[in-house]
């Protein structure tokens, strides 16, 4: 039996994803600043685009294919025009068939962020085609071009603009085709509602009529002119979710709903603790269960059975002895994170980075008042309602896996490595997923299902239990953040020193004007839990620390928290975000009372600017706090779908309540001690406040992603609100694991 690659990729593998996100941000910088780009050049990832032109037209029928190459390839190889072959470095492409149906191919995946709809809107806009003529094939490694993954709020700014380019080029080509067909002046032609119209003759040809029977391929050589956002008719509007009906009827098939002919159900025997080694195994009883296959390979032990109860039963019948090393428990968490930096500190996220400008010590020396405080954030879990799931099927030496992941191509690599297969013998398909929030970067369930299917010789479905999800997935990193600062007598910031231990570098910078600053991220050498990406990465913890500290400085300066911030901000977009939220909220109109408090926080990250105002009600007898109202402004450039965007923002606020108020993973010596919903409190209906979202639609600016940044304002705004009512400053996330002592 071949040795499997580790089924639990080490922490550094997950961390690598986080690093790749920062690499992406470097790519983004490259667009704005070529010099910067050279310093941060990222080695190109080899794209794998396996469908050749003949297969493509066989798959989709004759028609027009338009693709766009990876941006970095443009710089090296510009000026490509119409060709006969599909290049190997495509980023996205679309096909227009003889029936006028438009099929768009992108490696991005849909997990509730509504990108399937908002990308289709952008294609509809530039192609002047009806929404219902457009469908997206997403996250299928055999059909869609290579994509790094759906994370980092990259889909809208990157894939959105690439697809707009593709669609605009396709439209251009259709105009050419019509001009040729009619021998007409192109200037008299226009595209509308899926057809080219000749205004001088009144003639009309649908896109299908124009492309029927042809095998046309075009790859983009540059950026065609795009429709300015101010003139958008489909993009920028509240188009309903494209397949909404399949969700309210239960028709949509998530991975966990899939079946294949002859499919078996898998279950995995989990180790007794993290990092445990298998000492001995007795599976005789399990093997006696009819039709059950037991697989033992290294430290992996799993079963496949014709039905779910038999699989669970068989796992229960296995006797295994494990040996686990002693491990750091929750009580020692923060000390361990702080005391074990690996000596290296990493470059921070957007707007920040490890740096020192001016002299913090000189700034502190000249300050009228100084402050030094520590903030912490607990490990939390993504808890996507659909747990990790995979259906794996072998055909000879070819492996197909359906799985909910944010990185279909990354999971393909994991499978290829685990089974020693060339990449072209592995196909990963991602059905629209029951959410992820950064938690589904890895292919754990996919590798396990494939291992069981290989042994069984039949397709196998594996759906992790909630307890497995809470234990064997990965977590948002816990962190310790030390902030030291100094202000002048009038409240001007003079010095700012910020050290983040372990939670991450995203959003570590400060948007406030301060000449003397030092900012560092210190990754812990051996964090006690497997940790990785979580919606917004460390920007949530870093915003919590920074904005809480700004509040504390405001109190020290005797200034209103908003006035103090505005005094130290020049960035007009951030000022606008604060002013918009404050106005809608009625900031400063009502004084705080012992039972009613108000807080404000804001910032920018990943191209989005936000400010959050929160109102809390304090039950002093019980020590309970209820968030009663949240107003949040958000500016992410030109809004692509205001309804979808509001849904994302409002959802981020509610999800943020969990991490802000009560969510924490408890662990003891290599075991999670609250691995279920009855012990890990999630935000529920009764936790949801009145939420008001103010979109700042900047049609003059490119669209940024919005899946993450709206999460960041809630925790510090609530901490500020609790302080304003009670005078108690809470500096640890979650803020209220226990009732307040009043």
């Amino acid at each position, binding site marked *: 039996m071949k040795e499997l690659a580790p089924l639990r990729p080490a922490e550094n593998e997950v961390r690598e994803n986080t690093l790749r996100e920062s690499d992406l941000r470097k790519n983004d910088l490259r667009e704005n600043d070529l010099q910067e780009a050279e310093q941060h050049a990222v080695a190109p990832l080899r794209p794998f685009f396996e469908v050749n032109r003949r297969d493509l037209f066989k798959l989709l029928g004759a028609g027009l294919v338009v693709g766009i190459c990876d941006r970095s390839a443009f710089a090296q190889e510009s000026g490509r025009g119409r060709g006969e072959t599909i290049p190997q470095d495509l980023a996205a492409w679309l096909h227009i068939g003889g029936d006028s149906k438009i099929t768009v191919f992108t490696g991005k995946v849909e997990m*509730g*962020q*509504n990108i399937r709809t908002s990308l289709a809107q952008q294609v509809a806009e530039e192609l002047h085609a009806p929404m219902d003529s457009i469908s997206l094939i997403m996250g299928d490694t055999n059909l869609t071009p290579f994509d790094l993954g759906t994370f980092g709020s990259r889909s809208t700014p990157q894939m959105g603009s690439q697809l707009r380019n593709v669609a605009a080029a396709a439209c251009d080509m259709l105009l050419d085709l019509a001009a040729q067909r009619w021998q007409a002046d192109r200037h008299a032609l226009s595209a509308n509602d899926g057809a080219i119209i000749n205004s001088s003759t009144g003639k009309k040809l649908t896109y299908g009529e124009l492309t029927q029977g042809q095998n046309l391929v075009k790859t983009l050589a540059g950026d065609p002119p795009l429709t300015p956002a101010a003139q958008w008719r489909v993009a920028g509007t509240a188009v*309903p*979710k494209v397949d*909404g*009906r*399949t*969700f*309210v*009827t*239960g*028709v*949509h*098939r*998530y991975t*966990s*709903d899939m*079946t294949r002919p002859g499919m078996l*159900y898998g279950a995995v025997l989990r180790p007794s603790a993290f990092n445990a080694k298998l000492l001995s195994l007795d599976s005789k009883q399990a093997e006696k269960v009819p039709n059950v296959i037991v697989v033992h390979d290294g430290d992996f032990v799993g079963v496949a059975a014709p*039905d*779910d*109860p*038999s699989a669970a*039963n068989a796992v229960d019948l296995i006797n295994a002895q494990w040996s686990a090393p002693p491990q750091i428990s929750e009580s020692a968490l923060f000390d361990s994170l702080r005391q074990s930096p690996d000596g290296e500190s990493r470059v921070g996220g957007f707007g920040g980075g490890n740096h020192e400008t001016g002299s913090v010590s000189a700034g502190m020396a000249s300050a009228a008042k100084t402050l030094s405080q520590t903030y912490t954030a607990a490990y939390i879990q993504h*808890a*996507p*309602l*659909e*747990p990790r799931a995979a259906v794996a099927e072998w055909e000879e030496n070819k492996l197909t896996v359906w799985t909910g992941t944010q990185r279909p191509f990354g999971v393909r690599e994991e499978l290829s490595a685990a089974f020693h297969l060339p990449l072209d013998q592995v196909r990963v398909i991602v059905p*629209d*997923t*029951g*959410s992820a*929030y950064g938690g589904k970067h890895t292919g754990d369930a996919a590798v396990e299902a494939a291992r069981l299917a290989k042994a069984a010789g039949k397709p196998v479905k594996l*759906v992790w*239990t*909630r307890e497995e999800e809470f234990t064997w997935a990965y977590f948002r990193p816990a962190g310790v953040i030390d902030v030291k600062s100094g202000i002048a007598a009038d409240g001007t910031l003079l010095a700012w020193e910020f050290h983040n231990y372990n939670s991450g570098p995203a959003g570590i910078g400060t948007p406030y004007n301060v000449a003397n600053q030092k900012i560092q991220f210190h990754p812990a050498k051996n964090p006690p839990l497997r940790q990785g990406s979580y919606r917004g990465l460390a920007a949530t913890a870093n915003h919590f620390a920074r904005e809480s500290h700004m509040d504390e400085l405001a109190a020290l300066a005797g200034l209103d928290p908003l006035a103090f911030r505005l005094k130290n901000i020049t960035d007009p977009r951030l000022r606008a975000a604060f002013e918009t939220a404050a106005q809608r909220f009625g900031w400063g109109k009502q004084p705080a009372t012992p039972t009613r408090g108000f807080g404000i926080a804001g910032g920018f990250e990943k191209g989005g600017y936000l400010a959050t105002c929160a109102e809390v009600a304090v039950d002093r007898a019980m020590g309970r706090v209820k968030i009663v109202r949240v107003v949040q402004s958000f500016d992410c450039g030109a809004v692509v779908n205001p*309804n*979808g965007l509001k*849904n*994302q923002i*409002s*959802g*981020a*606020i*509610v*999800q943020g*309540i969990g991490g802000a108020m009560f969510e924490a993973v408890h662990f003891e010596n290599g075991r999670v001690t609250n691995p*279920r*919903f*009855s012990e890990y409190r*999630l*935000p*529920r*209906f*009764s936790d*949801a406040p*009145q*939420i008001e979202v103010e979109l700042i639609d900047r049609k003059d600016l490119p669209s940024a992603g919005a899946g993450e940044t709206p999460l960041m304002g809630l925790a510090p705004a609530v901490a500020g609100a609790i302080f304003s009512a009670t005078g108690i400053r809470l500096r640890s996330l979650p803020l209220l694991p226990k009732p307040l002592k009043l």
Partner: protein
Amino acid sequence: MPVITLNVNGVERKTEVAPGEHLLFVLRNRLGLTGTKYGCGEGQCGACTVLLRGKSIRSCRVPAESVTGSKIVTIEGLATNGRLHPLQQAFLDEEAFQCGFCTTGMIMSAHSVLAANPHTSDEDIIQYMDGNVCRCGTYPRILAAIRRVAQGAKKS
């Protein structure tokens, strides 16, 4: 393996079940009704909600053998002749979902609360629905969708 008969969405369906097998897995794996979801297996998230004699239950906690002879309705049984149930339509109109994984359970729970009192208040809805988790945080819209149906009932 014992064979039982379940009355699901108005149809008598015979199926094998393992001893103690929960209704959720029988519906999903043996009857192909995958609109009902597994979220936690301990009745804490509501993704597995179906109607038993018109009232919402957590199908992950109910042994299938214990509900033979009782009318069970799943999300697949709500629409009639391709026409969405008013609650399904309201969820669609309010776009009261993101990833959609909790949606079917939300609709079944909402069905139960409105069946008990078509004119129910926001407070009652929130209290009743507190056992259903939407991890995407779409609660305000879900509440608006249920309210929309409740108010429709008030008008008629």
